[in-house]
């Protein structure tokens, strides 16, 4: 998933560069009766080690308010409208970092291609945990709706 999305390239970091930490996050998905159905692993960036003004700039992104959701549910029901839902897989991995956001990340534990040497991961796209991920994903989705789907 991560490789396919072109999330990073291997690079030597400049000597003074801030290297953001990384970490694996594991979870056992259970069904309603508590049996494990799937094991999930996320690679997360340790956003707390990002430097403001260098690694990230604005981080705001709109979030749906619950009253908005309920208002829409109420009116759509009265009007007998269709209501469907989709889940976007790895939503945050779709966000693009801007050219100003040069972020180097420590390779995650266990990630060791043969020729790694002293190289680190130069991020191309947002990861879970980065400060700007929410905002970059919001911008990406807006671009898809406006430019791609013509809304």
């Amino acid at each position, binding site marked *: 998933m991560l490789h396919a999305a072109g999330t990073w390239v291997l690079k030597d970091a400049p000597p003074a560069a801030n290297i953001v930490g990384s970490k694996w996050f594991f979870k056992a998905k259970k069904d309603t009766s508590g049996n494990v159905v799937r094991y999930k692993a996320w690679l997360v960036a340790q956003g707390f080690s990002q430097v403001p003004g260098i690694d990230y700039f604005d981080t705001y992104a709109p979030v749906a308010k619950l009253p908005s959701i309920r208002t829409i*549910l*109420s009116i759509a029901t009265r009007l007998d409208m269709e209501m469907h839902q989709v889940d976007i897989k790895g939503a945050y991995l779709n966000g693009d970092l801007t050219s100003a956001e040069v972020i180097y990340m420590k390779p995650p534990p266990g990630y060791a291609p043969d020729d790694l040497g002293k190289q680190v991961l130069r991020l191309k796209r947002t990861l879970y945990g980065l400060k700007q991920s929410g905002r970059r994903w919001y911008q990406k989705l807006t671009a*898809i709706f406006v430019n791609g789907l013509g809304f």
Partner: protein
Amino acid sequence: MTHALIDEFKARLKDHVEITDLGELHWLLSIEILRDRQAQLVHLSQRSYIDAILRRFGFEDLKPVSIPMDTQKTLSAAQSPASTSEFAAMRNVPYREAVGSLMYLALATRPDIAFAISIVSHFTIRPGLEHWESVKRIFRYLKGTRELWLTYGSLPGGEKLQGYADADGSMAEDRHAISGYAFMLGGGVISWASKRQEIVSLSTTESEYVAITHAAKEAKWLRSLIAEIFHPLVDPTPLLSDNQSAIALTQDHQYHARSKHIDIRYHFIRWMVEDGTIRLVYCPTEDMVADTLTKALPSMKVKHFASELGLRSL
């Protein structure tokens, strides 16, 4: 036709991102959504979330109760721990975590516990045993009412947006009154709040006035949301209050000696009456559904207002 449009939208979205089609809306932010197309109703519940938090805090075996907050009991900062032994007794109590997990319910589908949560959340800094007992009571109330579903749709009287605003200050030890509002649409409450007022009022009229202003701002926002997504609302939104003198204040530009201390920003509401955003309407206290957002009520009223707000059993 509509189905073709939805399929096309999903297909086109797939050109840009990887998606899982979850079909008709049935689950959103831990809210279970049941739709009855025949009756044109939608029912929302967080019963699995309630079960999960009862389990998380080890409250599965608590006895259910019919009200979320004791009407006789007043919580105050004086009940916070003072001695070493009192602090020790509270050390391992997950007060903040419990209040936090109840907060999400109060925000999403359970206006009937909103007032109780706003009260117990005042004591998260230094909670005492009395405060913790009040938190437990909310869990017990939820245990007995987990099958209440917030319902909207083609219900009588649900065609128009209508708001209720109320205030109560009698039980607050610090003299800060509580504002409550509820906006009804489609037979159920779509927006509500129970909030401690920032100012100290000198009269009930003043605190009711503050509550009306708080509600009026929400009315303005809801109207613009509905206008943007569906259609503009032509008529002013009725805002119901059980305080005649607060209503009079909103309609009168005259300078009253007894009300000139009221902060200028609360007169914002007069403009909203003039520009046709809202219309103040008197409502007798027994029909004031926002009452349940401003004080602890006895069981009969708790049930009545919960049902008026659209919380029903299936």
